[in-house]
């Protein structure tokens, strides 16, 4: 073999890619100006963004934070020489937008309540947290109304006791009376306890040991606090109802199934606003003569019914997504219906449904603005009341903008979280 060979014996060193395809320039070329059409579109979009900012920014940056009435704002803006927003109203009323008419010295209770909400939700949502925290999650549903509405601590304690009674009944009566009787008693005993006994017992203990915090009427609720309260309570209550409805809809018992389907389709078929009309004008008529529920409680009831129908569909989706084999395996193990649901089906179905549940919550939370139409003072309703103050009458954009931004922050962060969950759950299943 001679020494003339044309096969390269060592690799050439890698060349730098052309400057036009790397770095910022490359990125711009590839993503913004990849073709003539794309360039035009990019320029149009840039022009649009510029136009929008040029309109909005000067208006938003307006030195009216300390104005105490619209007239003062107008004076400041007149000096400015261009249209500006009047932010004084936000400075003066933002606490009202947050807490409504809740007593000022008790704001901490509301804040604490919603912080605890996250503590209670954390072990459900983040699986790596210690399981012991679930005990707090179980206590929270009783703690929350107590903190918000105040009053004696014995009411929530007695309410919780009902569940304990039910649990004890199902646990300890089963060997004595047989499974079915114990199950029935586990349902019946707590109901008897709640309806007939818990009230007097709570009163009795309260008179001996009055552990109470200042009670707050629900009429004092307003602003975002009202929206969040309605949203959270309705979603929390709708979860168990939704599970039952979803099971009812899947059931092969004809009457149970038709009742569930009828309820779900009825609620989903009418607009929420008509249900709120029912809450505001009709619910008292449906109750025994003389009953007078608080309007906020009535709204919570109707929103709960509304949310449970949607929740039922979400959970039904979760149930349907479970492989058939899971049901068959549960049957093969000889589990009865409720055991199979509790140990095999529901833990998986609920886990799949979490993103759906979160988006139902976002929907319900957004829909709470509708209560302003029946005269409740949620942020939107409150804005109307506040604008009736002669000092601020005539403002529009500042208030609506503020409300919209707050809603956006709440809902956007929740929807991002649900997307994160969705991704996490997906990888867990494939």
């Amino acid at each position, binding site marked *: 073999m001679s020494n003339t060979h044309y096969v390269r014996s060592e690799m050439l060193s890698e060349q730098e890619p052309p400057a036009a395809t790397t770095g910022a320039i490359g990125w711009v070329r590839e993503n913004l100006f990849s073709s003539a059409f794309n360039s035009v579109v990019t320029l149009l979009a840039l022009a649009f963004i510029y136009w929008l900012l040029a309109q909005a920014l000067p208006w938003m940056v307006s030195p009216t934070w300390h104005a105490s009435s*619209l007239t003062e704002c107008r004076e400041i803006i007149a000096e400015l020489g261009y249209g500006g927003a009047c932010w004084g109203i936000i400075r003066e*009323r933002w606490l*009202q937008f947050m807490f*409504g*008419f809740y007593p000022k010295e008790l704001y901490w209770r509301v804040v604490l309540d919603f912080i605890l909400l996250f503590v209670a939700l954390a072990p459900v949502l983040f699986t790596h947290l210690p399981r012991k925290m679930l005990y707090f999650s179980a206590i929270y*549903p*009783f703690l929350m*109304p*107590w903190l918000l*509405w*105040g*009053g004696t601590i014995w*009411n*929530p304690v*007695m*309410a919780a006791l*009902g*569940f304990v009674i039910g649990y004890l009944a199902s646990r300890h009566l089963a060997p004595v009376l047989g499974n079915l009787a114990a199950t029935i008693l586990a349902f019946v005993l*707590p*109901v008897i306890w*709640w309806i007939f006994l*818990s*009230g007097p017992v709570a009163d009795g203990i309260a008179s001996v040991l009055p552990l109470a915090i200042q*009670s707050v*009427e*629900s*009429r004092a609720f307003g602003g975002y606090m009202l929206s969040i309260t309605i949203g959270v309570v309705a979603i*929390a*209550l709708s979860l*168990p*109802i939704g599970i039952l409805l979803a099971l009812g809809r899947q059931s092969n018992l004809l009457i149970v199934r038709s009742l569930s389907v009828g309820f779900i389709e009825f609620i989903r078929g009418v607009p929420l606003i008509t249900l709120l*009309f029912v809450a*505001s*004008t009709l619910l*008292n*008529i449906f109750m025994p003569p*003389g*009953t*007078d*529920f*608080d*309007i906020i*409680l009535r709204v919570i*009831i109707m929103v*709960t019914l509304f949310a449970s129908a949607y929740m039922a569909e979400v959970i039904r989706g979760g149930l349907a997504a479970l492989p058939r084999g899971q049901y068959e395996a549960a049957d093969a193990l000889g589990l009865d219906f409720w055991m199979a649901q509790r140990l095999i089906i529901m833990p998986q179905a609920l886990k799949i449904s979490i993103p759906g549940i979160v988006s139902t919550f976002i929907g319900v939370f957004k829909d709470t603005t509708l209560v302003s139409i*029946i*005269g*409740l*003072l949620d942020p939107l*309703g409150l804005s*109307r*009341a*506040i604008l*009736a*103050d*002669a*000092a601020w*009458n*005539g403002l*529009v954009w500042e208030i609506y903008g503020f409300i919209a931004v707050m809603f956006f922050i709440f809902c956007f962060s929740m929807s991002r979280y649900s997307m994160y969950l969705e991704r996490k759950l997906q990888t867990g299943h494939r």
Partner: protein
Amino acid sequence: MKKTVLVGALAVAGLSAGVAGAATLDDVKARGKLNCGANTGLVGFAAPNANGEWEGFDVAFCRAVAAAVLGDPTAVEFIPTTGKTRFTALASGEVDLLARNTTWTFTRDIDLKFEFVGVNYYDGQGFMVPKELGVSSAKELDGATVCIQTGTTTELNLADFFRANNISYEPVPVETDNEAQQQYLAGACDAYTTDASGLAAVRATFEAPGDHILLPEIISKEPLGPLVRHGDNDWGDIVRWTLNALISAEELGITSANIDELSSGTDNPEINRILGTEGSLGEMLGLDAEWAKRAIKAGGNYGELFEKNVGETTPIGLARGLNAQWTNGGLLYSPPFR
């Protein structure tokens, strides 16, 4: 299951009030609070301030009733009601008293089964137009676009007025005063119609109030008054005579400033009877002797309430007009306390 328990817990926690029985007075006393139906927000008549306290002319009347019945003008729960929910709220017993600029009409009194206890503001429906439109009478509004608040008697009056004068118009219904104002100022409607007091109040908040005029026609009578449920006459009497006490107090010169002085006894027997130093009017109502004194002291007599909330010294700047005492050419005429 969970639902029952929470509803139960909430209910016991004092959320749901008691039973709306026949005797409203007993209910109010037992509760220690007066439930008063108010507007969700109407300039000068009802609006929450920065501290969350309700203020306004209608609100002040509720406080006077609370002072008379419970001895404390702050013992009032204001329940915001819309045009749609107000009557249901009263009929179902959710509120004891509706003081929400409600027009006294035959059907509301008879068919809806309410009892108007009197008139606390004589109003009438008017029109506001921009000056540059060059209109001087409502009859020139043929083909105009008119903004109008829904859920009130105003839309019926408007339909009747234009029908009677055989001219056409385009109604633009709006939910709140604020939206109407926005549309009107932007020129989306040529005219804005509502109660004349409301027009004046709205105009007062404009940047240039002088550019807008109220047309001379008042197309309806709008006697606005507090109302209670039919069938509880004792309660109706209390509310009615609280209103009368406020009106009489102005006529007789009882003010919140001199009331303590006057209640030590005067030469005028009617003043004495009102303030409870003579006779037993309070007992007859089922209250104590000083009920009217407390009611007047709560915010002042009718004239004081008017001046403080909607009068000429306020931005709203309403003149007394029909709402002056009969001695000054107005319509306020309280039956005698005797």
